[in-house]
C-alpha cells in the first residue's frame, strides 16, 4: 500500500507537467487534484497497516515521512486548484452574435492600433476575414 501510495504521489507531482505537453487539457486540473488525494489515501492505509500489523508490514518511519509529504501535496494542490479557478464571471462580455466594443491600443512597437485597423491588409497579406482576440494574463 505504501509503495502504491508513493507511486501515485510521484505520478501526482508529474501530472502537473502535463500542461506543457500537447494533451487535451480540459480535465487536467481534476487529475492534478484527484491524484494527490488518491496517493494520500493509499499512504494512510499503508501507514495504518505498518503500525497495526508491524510484524507483517514495515515502513513506520519512512511511511510517516511520505504521509506528511502527501498531506502537503494535497494541501498545495487544493489551494492551487481553487486559486486557478477563481476567475471573474465576465457576464457583461460580448456574446456570440453581438458586436464587440471598439478599442485603440498600442502594439508592441508603440503604434496605436484600432480594431478596424486589424482588418486592413498588412505586409503583403490580404485583409483577414476575422480577427482572433486573445486576452491573456500577461508576463508583466
Amino acid at each position, binding site marked *: 500500500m505504501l509503495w502504491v501510495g508513493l507511486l501515485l504521489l510521484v505520478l501526482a507531482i508529474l501530472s502537473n507537467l502535463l*500542461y506543457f505537453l*500537447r494533451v*487535451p*487539457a*480540459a480535465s*487536467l*486540473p481534476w487529475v492534478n487534484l484527484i491524484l494527490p488525494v488518491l496517493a494520500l489515501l493509499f499512504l494512510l492505509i499503508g501507514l495504518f497497516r505498518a503500525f497495526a500489523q508491524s510484524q507483517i508490514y514495515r515502513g513506520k518511519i519512512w511511511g510517516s515521512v511520505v504521509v506528511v509529504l502527501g498531506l502537503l501535496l494535497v494541501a498545495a494542490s487544493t489551494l492551487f486548484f481553487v486559486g*486557478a*479557478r477563481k*476567475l*471573474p464571471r*465576465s*457576464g*457583461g*462580455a*460580448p*456574446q*456570440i*452574435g*453581438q*458586436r*464587440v*466594443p*471598439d*478599442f485603440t*491600443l*498600442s*502594439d*508592441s*512597437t*508603440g503604434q496605436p*492600433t484600432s*480594431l478596424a485597423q*486589424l*482588418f486592413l491588409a*498588412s505586409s503583403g*497579406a*490580404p485583409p*483577414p*476575414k*476575422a*480577427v*482572433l*482576440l*486573445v*486576452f*491573456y*494574463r*500577461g*508576463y*508583466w
Partner: protein
Amino acid sequence: MRGIQENLQEFAAHGVRPVAICVDLPAVSENLRKKQGYSFTFLSDPQTEAIRRYDLLHKGAGPEEHDIARPAEFLVDRSAIVRWENFTEDIRVRPRAQQMLAAAESIRW
C-alpha cells in the same frame, strides 16, 4: 501563444488574424515576441481600457495586486460581430490552436 505561432499559416489560410492583448507595456510584449519568436500582433492595455470594456477585468490578480485580464478568446468578423468565443474556468486550461481553427472552419463567412 506557442500553439498560435506554430499554426500561423493555418490561421492565415482560414483568413484569421490572431491578436494577443494584455496589460503588459509595449516594451514587455516586444521583448516576449523577440524571445519567443512570436510574429503576430501584440496589443498593450496597461490602463485596462479594452479589458474593462470587454468585462474581462480580473481585479488584483496581477503582481502587487495589479488588475489584469482574465483569459478569454473572441473570433470577430469584419462587422465586429463575435462568431465564436471561449472563457476558461481554470487559468491552466486554454483552447488549443486546433480547437480555434476548427471554430474558424465551421463558420460560414
